[in-house]
């Protein structure tokens, strides 16, 4: 149904994406029960392989796996003194020896999950939890799930839903995955950023591009703010954080330009005061906290669909 691995939003067909989102809807009910547990992945071993620090995503995956009764091991490599490169292969071989059924990998190098999936070091499923500046498919899925609940009366069809994504698109795997997935689901995406923070060739991406946030906000069903790193000033991407906020930050004045039902999203963690003001972050229409809850359910759906059936050797791996 999904193939052996979940490496990128680009790989998902519309049917596969809808399957994940519909499965998420069913699994969301589990969170409301007193026994928040399903026996489905009992006896499976899921490894969290996090080479980049990320408490929130790691916990989200851990919880998702545990709710499905899987055994979870977390390997956190940040700060440990393994030399670059060597660590991925040797770590993978160690996990294989331990019998990992699935490896959830977050890595600073674009393409690392793909290497893990194709190099022949492990047998299990690979789930990309974010690779470099390339993709973060489960983030896009939870964003799409959140959008479904808050647009078009919550009936689940994203065709024609207008989504604006604002910020450092150039370095954002969240932006890439969202553009790809939302296009697959029929939504209309507009990217807003200064020219220095847009990738070469973005004019060929399946979305619109604008340098002017104020012009775009009145016609949005959802505005997704991306985290901007102040360190980018060193690369001369923008002159100062103040100028960035002035031109591309979402504050109360800009929020008032939005349609009353439009929502504000953010993948987190937020830089309050930089890309998003405190007023907006705490507004009713900001669904940031709900995104986190949806994240657990989406990840449960992904784990179920990857591991919930017969193991997929020979089912056309990535």
């Amino acid at each position: 149904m999904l193939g052996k691995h979940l490496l990128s939003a680009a790989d998902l067909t519309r049917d596969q994406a809808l399957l994940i989102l519909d499965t998420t809807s069913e699994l969301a009910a589990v969170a409301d029960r007193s026994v928040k547990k399903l026996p489905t992945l009992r006896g499976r071993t899921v490894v969290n392989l996090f080479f980049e620090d990320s408490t929130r995503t790691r916990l989200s995956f851990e919880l998702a796996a545990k709710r499905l009764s899987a055994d979870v091991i977390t390997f956190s490599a940040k700060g440990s003194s393994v030399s670059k490169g060597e660590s991925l292969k040797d770590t993978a071989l160690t996990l294989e020896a331990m019998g990992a059924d699935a490896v959830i990998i977050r890595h600073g190098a674009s393409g690392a999950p793909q290497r893990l999936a194709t190099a022949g070091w492990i047998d299990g499923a690979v789930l990309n939890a974010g690779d470099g500046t390339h993709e973060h498919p489960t983030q896009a899925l939870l964003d799409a799930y959140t959008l479904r609940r808050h647009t078009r009366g919550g009936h689940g069809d994203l065709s024609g839903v207008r989504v604006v994504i604002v910020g450092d698109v150039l370095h954002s795997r969240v932006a890439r995955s969202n553009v790809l997935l939302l296009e697959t689901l029929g939504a209309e995406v507009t990217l807003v950023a200064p020219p220095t923070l847009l990738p070469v060739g973005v004019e060929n991406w399946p979305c619109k591009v604008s340098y002017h946030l104020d012009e775009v906000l009145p016609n949005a069903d959802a505005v997704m703010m991306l985290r901007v790193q102040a360190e980018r000033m060193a690369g001369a991407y923008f002159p100062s954080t103040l100028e960035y906020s002035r031109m591309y930050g979402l504050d109360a004045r800009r929020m008032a330009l939005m349609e009353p039902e439009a929502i504000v999203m953010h993948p987190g963690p937020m830089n309050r005061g930089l890309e998003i003001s405190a007023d907006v972050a705490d507004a009713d229409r900001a669904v940031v906290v709900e995104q986190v809850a949806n994240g657990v359910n989406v990840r449960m759906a992904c784990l179920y669909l990857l591991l919930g059936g017969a193991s997929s050797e020979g089912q056309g791996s990535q």
Partner: protein
Amino acid sequence: MSMIIRGAQPYGEVAQDIEISDGVISRISPAGSPPEEDASHDAFDVELDAAGCVLLPGLVDLHTHLREPGREDSETIATGSRAAAKGGFTCVHAMANTAPVADTAGVVEQVWRRGVETGLVDVRPVGAVTVGLQGAQLAELGAMASSAAQVRVFSDDGLCVHDPLLMRRALEYVKAFDGVVAQHAQDPRLTEGAQMNEGELSGRLGLAGWPAVAEEAIIARDVLLAEHVDSRLHVCHVSTAGSVEVVRWAKARGIPVTAEATPHHLLLTEELVASFDPIYKVNPPLRREEDVMALREAVVDGTIDIIATDHAPHPREDKDCEWAAAAMGMIGLETALPIASQVFIESGLMDWRALGERLSVAPARIGRVADQGTVIEVGAPANLVVWDPSQSTVVTPAMFESKSANSPYLGRSFAGTVRHVIFRGRPTVVSGEVVS
């Protein structure tokens, strides 16, 4: 030692029998001719069958990395020489980015001597332009030129001589000994952390881009400097259509610039990077289809004077990892001629005489190597390669003489193969195998 090569076609033309003795070509006669009446021997020491084969002057590589001293885990002068011979080369220029860097007479003489001891190809050390490749201070270019290694080609390859003043001084200085500065054109500020060609694909894959302008802008500056100080400039591994335009413009103005392209830049495109397999990671990076086509055109019309391998061995662990952590480079000595034959001969774009120019004659001329890349005639030094179009070159890890196997062509096969190679009148490769 006396030798005869039977039935070879020099430059792919008429079949001849070529006799060799004392290191030079002693007689050329139509294939199957009876021996001379005054022959001083009854039989030859070595007889090589070359029926249906093409005979070219031994190939000369202006750009090879032999890794010794310092990185003998990936290649040594001995294994690199074997790889070169297997590929049809009788002379290679060994780049200076070793450890220690080849920036003194001592190191270049060491490299040269190892090459002589191995005795399979002429190893011509390339001298670094700047001390330690740091780009700050000129290395002792004169000492290297006068040393036993007789260095004539100077390059910081791996790195760009980006300081315009240093580049000017280097260009001026080497005039004294007919040297040439070979520039690795890559503006460091525009390519910090770069992983692949900058373009739509790099944007989609989330890999930092290496924009074409970082190469073209340096070449544009350097050809103007070369014109200003009237000195020879050689441009390493040209990779973009824009760079070709700049070189063409410079030549039209009479600027003494030469340029090279690698086999991989003449064959492979950036689409391969989408697999994130680091076997395709190289510097300069694989570019677009338009760039490959422009480079091919330039090789045909001579804007690109030579094909050079940029043979860059790396141990397995430097490629067996995620893209960002992988080393840049591909081996290429043993696949250069098969690729050149496929791209230029099989397609009808060039004939063997012209390809011989690109692979042997012109590189020898640029490197000022007197007894390589010579005309196939009586009295010429016997550095020759016999190419058999009827056999295939099947690329497998086991096939490589090189110590490393980081080739993007594993699993592919090319029409034609190197059958015999003669170096200074002695066979180094017979029937496709390097002689010990």
